């Protein structure tokens, strides 16, 4: 295979994995936004905590990698339950400014707690996979990559199935479409809020735990992650699950190609510029279905 094609393939592979991570994070964010009408500025912190807890459990507690990942997610879920009960419950029907300020405050809080616990150094989650590359027809990848790719893809599919096929998912969608009507037919709104919030946090934490072996986590990364997730949500249409998935993949690929062929310093700006363009020309998002 020609070198150019191989390089392109490399970028695409990276882009797809990062894109899947973005999709997972954005899926939760868009559900929280759609059901609870809260733009959760602390969402990226769930990703960051998923990664750091996985790191902590593997390196410092000595858990098996495959046990540590779900445990990390479970711990974040516990945190999410606590947060929902103490803070987010009070944000129901609150105005935009209130919910934004509270979630910004929470984001700062979580970020600096992580800094306090683990220090500012970026950390990678130690994985049991051999680093030896696998040759896929000229494009090189590693077992870790394949594992990460498989898990994130499976999670995306699982998330989609939960929303589309399960009763809980249907209740969530109903609440999203019409809160009063849902309450009238007996859906317990407070329970749906809790489930949605936890669901979103779990997806983000899972993405963080899985990708933590691949991309180092640092306590201050939550902000940028949140912002990227918002970019995906806006691109895909706020409240659109499908849009979050496709938007996430698109952003991941665009950034990988941009970093590879243009400049890695500016790659973060791709999403930000895209969002401004979308706002100018197609404010409801690239994918109209909500």
């Amino acid at each position, binding site marked *: 295979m020609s070198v150019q094609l191989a390089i392109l393939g490399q970028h695409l592979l990276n882009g797809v994995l990062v894109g899947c991570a973005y999709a997972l994070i954005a899926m939760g964010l868009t559900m929280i936004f759609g059901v609870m009408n809260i733009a959760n500025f602390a969402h990226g912190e769930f990703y960051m905590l998923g990664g750091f807890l996985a790191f902590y459990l593997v390196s410092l507690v000595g858990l098996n990698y495959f046990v540590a990942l779900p445990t990390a997610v479970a711990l974040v879920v516990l945190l999410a339950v606590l947060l929902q009960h103490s*803070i987010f419950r009070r944000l129901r029907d609150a105005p*935009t400014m*209130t919910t934004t300020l*509270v979630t910004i405050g929470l*984001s700062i809080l979580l970020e600096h707690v992580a800094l306090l616990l683990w220090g500012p150094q970026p950390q990678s989650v130690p994985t049991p996979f051999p680093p030896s590359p696998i040759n896929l027809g000229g494009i090189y990848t590693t077992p870790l990559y394949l594992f990460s790719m498989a898990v994130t893809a499976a999670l995306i599919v699982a998330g989609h199935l939960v929303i589309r096929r399960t009763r809980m998912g249907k209740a969530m969608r109903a609440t999203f479409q019409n809160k009063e009507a849902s309450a009238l037919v007996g859906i317990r709104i407070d329970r749906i809020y809790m489930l949605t919030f936890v669901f979103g946090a779990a997806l983000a934490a899972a993405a963080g735990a899985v990708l933590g072996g691949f991309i180092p986590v640092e306590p201050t990364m939550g902000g940028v992650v949140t912002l990227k997730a918002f*970019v995906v949500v806006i691109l895909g249409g706020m409240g659109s699950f499908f849009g979050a998935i496709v938007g996430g993949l698109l952003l991941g690929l665009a950034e990988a190609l941009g970093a590879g062929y243009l400049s890695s310093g500016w790659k973060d700006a791709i999403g930000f510029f895209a969002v401004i363009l979308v706002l100018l020309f197609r404010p409801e998002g690239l994918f109209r279905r909500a």
Partner: protein
Amino acid sequence: MRETPAQHPIALLATLVVLLAVPLVVRDEYFLHLFIVSGIFVIVAISLDLMVGYVGQLSLAHAAFFALGAYTSALLFVRFKWSMWVGIPAAGLVTALAAFLLGLVILRTRGHRFIIITVAFSEIMKLAATNWVDVTRGFMGLPGLQIPTLTIPGIGAIDIASKERFYYVVLIAAVLTFLACRALVRSRIGRAFVLVRENEVLAESLGISAFRYCMIAFVIGAGLAGAAGSLYAHYVGFVSPDLFNFSWVTVMLIMVILGGKGTLVGPALGAVIFTFLPELLREALQWRMIIFGTILIVATLFMPRGIIFPLLEHLVPSRWRTRHARAA
């Protein structure tokens, strides 16, 4: 519209007299430094209040405007040797222009989208400061900024670089900003701000263009923040991409929210308190931000009018309150 005892002209005048006396009483350089920085942040907080408190839109781009002003002034000084006296108005104009252009794009959106776009803008600015190394020198920043002398015809050049002297420069700037913004919010424009905030759809249906008034608050707020950034840059002596960190936004928000949004005086007091307080809690930077985050959550949920005014009303005897407070 509603005035509390803290905004009574006598209270303000008394405060001014006290402030004028500060360098005479306070000899410690460190405390003077804090006063100077608070003064600069008074300008920032008041200008942010126009958008957050009066028009009711949460702009998270304010710190980026502050930093943009700082960089503009720094670049003018480093490249063209233009002094701070030119730098301040230039910074103000450049940021106002940037806000105007950004506003054309984003001021028709509301709610979450608007907020997120302001963050995206801030991040783009940060990336520019970090990566456009030819112009901004990236992480190395632009050092070597100076406070110029003040040349008054007939008197000559006065050195204002000392903390005692520069304090008065900042004090004058802060007082002027306060008076100008107060005149603005009491004017017809200010009344329109509040109407847009209270019910935008209704205001539009009665003939008030929300876009226009949001733009006015946005541009003026940004320009003032940019000018403050210029003051800060020359005082501190250098600029770096750290000025674009999101933590600055958090601090500014706390000043406005805890001070009491929509009052001007509240955020001004908030600026002073939240410049002094963190310095007194010098312990660990981490704990400081953890406390800030918690304060922001608690204040937003439980103290919609901020801390300062409810506290003052508690302390001021009720006889005073009914005599001086006008009807709500």
